[in-house]
């Protein structure tokens, strides 16, 4: 409920967000929960479905003109797949799209991912509120 009031305070324009799982990973519980939570927080949600390649994720992000790409992986391949998405977005001239991550991400990997501009990198047990606030705050900064 708190999440809703925060999103009202954000910009007029709704946040468009792509929830994506760039890899061989069927663990979609978290991604599907986030889709519902982002929707209830007033965002426009696009879900990649399962098993897209980083290339496909980037194409979707550009075609759908999203503000944010939220990446989720629980298969240990985040250090390969997440930076690849960041690099490809830059290559395609879409470096302004915000990237956040989550999954089974050890603390030492978080710092490395931040160097690619991928923030959040939330682990299990993170509250939806914390994730939504993080995204909204990054969008606010970007739109300023």
């Amino acid at each position, binding site marked *: 409920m708190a999440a809703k009031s925060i999103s009202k305070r954000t910009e007029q324009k709704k946040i468009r967000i792509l929830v994506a799982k760039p890899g061989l990973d069927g663990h979609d519980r978290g991604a599907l929960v986030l889709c519902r939570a982002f929707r209830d927080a007033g965002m426009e949600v696009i879900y990649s479905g399962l098993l897209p390649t980083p290339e496909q994720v980037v194409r979707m992000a550009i075609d759908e003109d999203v503000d944010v790409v939220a990446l989720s992986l629980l298969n240990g391949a985040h250090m390969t*797949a997440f930076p690849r998405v960041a690099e490809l977005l830059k290559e395609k001239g879409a470096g302004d799209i915000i990237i956040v991550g989550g999954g089974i991400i050890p603390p030492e990997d978080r710092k490395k991912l931040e160097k690619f501009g991928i923030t959040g990198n939330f682990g299990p047990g993170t509250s939806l509120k914390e994730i939504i606030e993080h995204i909204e705050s990054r969008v606010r900064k970007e739109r300023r």
Partner: protein
Amino acid sequence: MLETQRSYWRVRLSEIGARNKARAVDQKAMKRLKENYRKWEEQILEPWLKSSPELDKDFQTPSNIKVGRVYTPLDIENFDPVRDAGLPGSFPYTRGVYPTMYRGKPWTMRMFSGFGTPEDTNKRLKYLINHGETGLSIAFDMPTLYGYDADSERAEGEVGKCGCNISSLKDMDILLNAVPLGDVSTSMTINAPAAILTAMYAAVGERQGVPLKKLRGTVQADMLKEYIAQKEWVYPPEAHMRIIRDMMLFCTKQMPQWNYVSVSGYHIREAGADAVQELAFTLADGFAYIDLGIEAGFKVEEFAPRISFFFNCCMNFFEEIAKFRAARRIWATVLKEKYGVTNPRALLLRFHTQTSGASLTWQQPTNNVVRTAIEALAAVLGGTQSLHTNSYDEAWALPTEEAVTIALRTQQIIAEETGVADTIDPLGGSYYLEWLTNEMEERAFSYFDKIESIGGVLAAVKAGYLQREIAETAYRTQKRAEEGKDIVVGVNKHVVEEEPPISTLKIDLKAQRRQVKRLKEVRKQRDNAKVAKALQELKNAYKNPDANSMYLILKAVKAYATLGEIVNVGREVFGEWTEPSLL
């Protein structure tokens, strides 16, 4: 046909409802109980509540079953110890599938393990055998599960991360090196490429001089739950179901001790389902495999004993135990009534249990030792045939050797120190547990009826119904935790600020490099013309719905066709599956 099937679930549902509401035979005794209960409420409970109110207005299980203050015979007035519980090893098997249970043989301690290269996993398997493990259980990495070779572009960064990588027969040979396949039983958690891995196992067995008839083990091969929950598919459902049929036919003739389908609720639960949904969707899948077997021309009596089950065990202690008891009773009853089975061996719901991965917390990870112990105890009190206990560090990574050892020791302590295995179904007859068993059974039948009205499990999967049911429950569970309605110690209560990092198992990219190198050697050394011929024959078999593809998969495997090459033949013939929208 459909009409009579639908009416079975409906009729049975109303019978169960009537039983659960029915009055007792001995009305005099019940009257005394009622009087006693009324007096207790008036004279003892109410004055107490005035000064000490309860913590909550309502108590409920995670499946939204309202839990009463205390249970008495009044809650199971019509409970019939013969009809509803029976005795161990006798219909309806509520109390256990065997007459002596753990007094005769402890459950199999089967630790699910696999990481990195086949060499890494082989070492871990031997470590576990040396520490008293009694059955093998192998985990494969994502490329293997999705049917990609280690050198595929899609495998980049994923080789060996979540399990052991197997790209060809050469890898399987190394994985099972010096493991006596004639003596151990091996469970392989593999689904879309299950037929290929079974063929590889058979080929290694033959090399060790073990006849196929003597190979014992299980492949999961439960594709229905892949579409519902775990989402590790390659082809559309019909194609996978046909390959399972071929494997069933092959195994019945050639590998009679091989359990070719392990109907799995574990992943349904981990994906977010509650205990009732796990029970209902898993058994619905089980009945769908029975239907598949009948369609393939089998007699239920003959193939049902080769179907086993795999359940989750989560934190709500009694709900989990009730789930296992209800599962046995439902399976035996439906097989007997709906499918006309008379052979008692074909009525037994035998199952493996894994403690819940989703219940493990990233925060204060050593608390997970306690969670796993409680879940393992529930599985044992629920009468499991084999058990995997999770390691405390698994919310972080694949487990270290130290963490796995504690997990195995947890089972050994339950088996050898607590005495809970000395008598069978020690909680049977508990007013609460019997009531809860009835309640879960009724709710499961209500789902069976609903699934049937959609047109069966496959139709329900294609419509996205089962997937959405699970996703909605997962979202509800998450919200309940955030609102503080469900407590997770260390996560939303008793939280500490800083966590000391634990040391976890690291899998680096070396595993991928080693696997790619070996694959190159395999491709160079094998007879490529022979491989091409085997793959072409498999393609022809796939195109002919009446052919049995399993024999040709075995031939291709033995010619060192790789996993990816074999799976690709099916990709060309059947195409790939795209899930319906779940939002």
